[in-house]
């Protein structure tokens, strides 16, 4: 525990030291929200979104931005780099286990995701009247399970990719797909219905987030699928992970 605490502190310090990445991860969704929120017509109620305005409707997709960046991009790339550069191997020669470094990476990734989500929710509420999640419990559940599913996929990438190049080759398409199905590139009402429905079931499960935030409440099936993906990808990653 002692070693883990020190490794975590070091990883957090390194994370804070990379300011451009940190600002992007934490601030980008909120920045997009502010830009969109400044356009008056996007704040008008619209029958396309059950009488909500576009900003409200789009906010969950902005959560996907950070989840995708961290979950299937920066976190697995950081682990792949640590493995390729022998950081994990060096740690294996000391009394500390390289698993502590992996755990520390997950903790800082979670912290960044949480900070980004809180910033988005608070700014959305104060600046543009986006309501706080209507179903706090359901929202928390949808957020936790969606995050877990994406992080597990990210760990799987880090596990199967032997080099940082291979990790990148896996992470980039996964990132683009997550963003696409999460309705970030094209708002989902513009997507063909079938594509939007697929997006309900791809991590982090944007429909469940939307339903819990401003809608009726998340559907159990959507949540269950995220849980299944999290467990399956997490277990495979644990089985396949190589320390060197």
């Amino acid at each position, binding site marked *: 525990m002692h070693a883990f605490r020190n490794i975590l502190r*070091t990883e957090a*310090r*390194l994370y804070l030291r990379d300011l451009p990445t940190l600002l992007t991860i934490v601030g980008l969704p909120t920045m997009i929200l502010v830009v969109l929120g400044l356009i008056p017509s996007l704040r008008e109620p619209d029958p396309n979104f059950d009488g909500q305005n576009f900003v409200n409707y789009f906010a969950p997709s902005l959560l996907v931005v950070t989840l995708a960046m961290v979950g299937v991009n920066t976190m697995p790339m950081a682990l792949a780099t640590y493995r390729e550069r*022998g*950081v994990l191997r*060096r740690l294996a*020669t000391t*009394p500390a286990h390289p698993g502590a470094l992996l755990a520390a990476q997950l903790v800082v990734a979670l912290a960044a995701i949480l900070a980004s989500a809180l910033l988005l929710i608070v700014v959305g509420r104060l600046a543009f009247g986006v309501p706080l999640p209507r179903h706090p419990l359901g929202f928390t559940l949808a957020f936790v399970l969606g995050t877990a599913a994406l992080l597990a996929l990210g760990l799987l990438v880090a596990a199967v990719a032997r080099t940082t190049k291979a990790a990148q080759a896996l992470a980039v398409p996964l990132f683009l797909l997550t963003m696409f199905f999460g309705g970030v590139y094209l708002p989902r009402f513009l997507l063909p219905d079938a594509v939007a429905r697929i997006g309900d079931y791809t991590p982090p499960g944007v429909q469940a987030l939307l339903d819990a935030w401003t809608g009726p409440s998340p559907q159990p099936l959507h949540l269950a699928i995220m849980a299944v993906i999290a467990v399956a990808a997490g277990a495979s990653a644990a089985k396949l992970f190589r320390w060197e």
Partner: protein
Amino acid sequence: MPVIEVTHLKKRYGDLVAVDDVSFAVEAGEIFGVLGPNGAGKTTTVECVAGLRVPDGGGVSVLGLDPRRDAAQLRQRVGVQLQESQLPDRLRVAEALELYASFYRNPADPAALIDKLGLGDKRNTAYKKLSGGQKQRLSIALALVGNPEIAILDELTTGLDPQARRDTWGLIEQVRDSGVTIVLVTHFMEEAERLCDRVAVIDRGRVVALDSPAGLVSTVAPEQRIRFRPSAPVDDRLLTDLPEVSAVQRTGGQVVVTGTGDLLHAVTSVLARHQIVAADLRLEQSTLDDAFVELTGHRPAN
């Protein structure tokens, strides 16, 4: 009482036999070299000693312990510097040493270690801003920060310029003088000759020689060569009659005498007796390089 005992070690990766049959013992307080051509099984051997790999056969005992079963204890007592092992770019020198020191029960003082390794003015420098030599010294410091009884150093000076290499050698001697047993994997013969008390030469997964560097040279490649320009014509027979001489050659005005034993004394005495002055006289003795080639059939790197 040896601190490391390796007996009939075997290790294969699929069809590739990395270590076929390696045995040696390392005594407390010595610098023990593991030499061999690339792919000879050096790194795999020391990785088994460090407990990073599971041998397929044979035994390894380190400080009387089993590197796999007693891994937790040995990691406290054995420091390892691995080949091509880096650190995160933004991690600073002092942070790295303080972090690694915190893993050990009886760590060295990181600040003192930084000074000892000549990194005092780099304390707050990020890893990526360090030169190759500084990175290497930091890597050595990390292997020593737990106050180990044994330090295993793999390819210590690969990639360093000649000055940095010499500085590193001085450092390793200091470490040995402080009582640490050192296992040094290298393919630089000059490094082994300078530092090692004894060396094991490994080729194709087997130990082909085990001796002090000087012992290896004198048994494996005892030949010496003398070159000189005689001030007056020399009859070859004058030289070939000497028991120490095995051959005499002439190239231009130069005479090259090959032989063993106290060759220099024998040749200079006979020349003096005939009032011949040997100008530009040079004695070429075999080096560990020659012994290495003799043993493995490979030219060592550089």
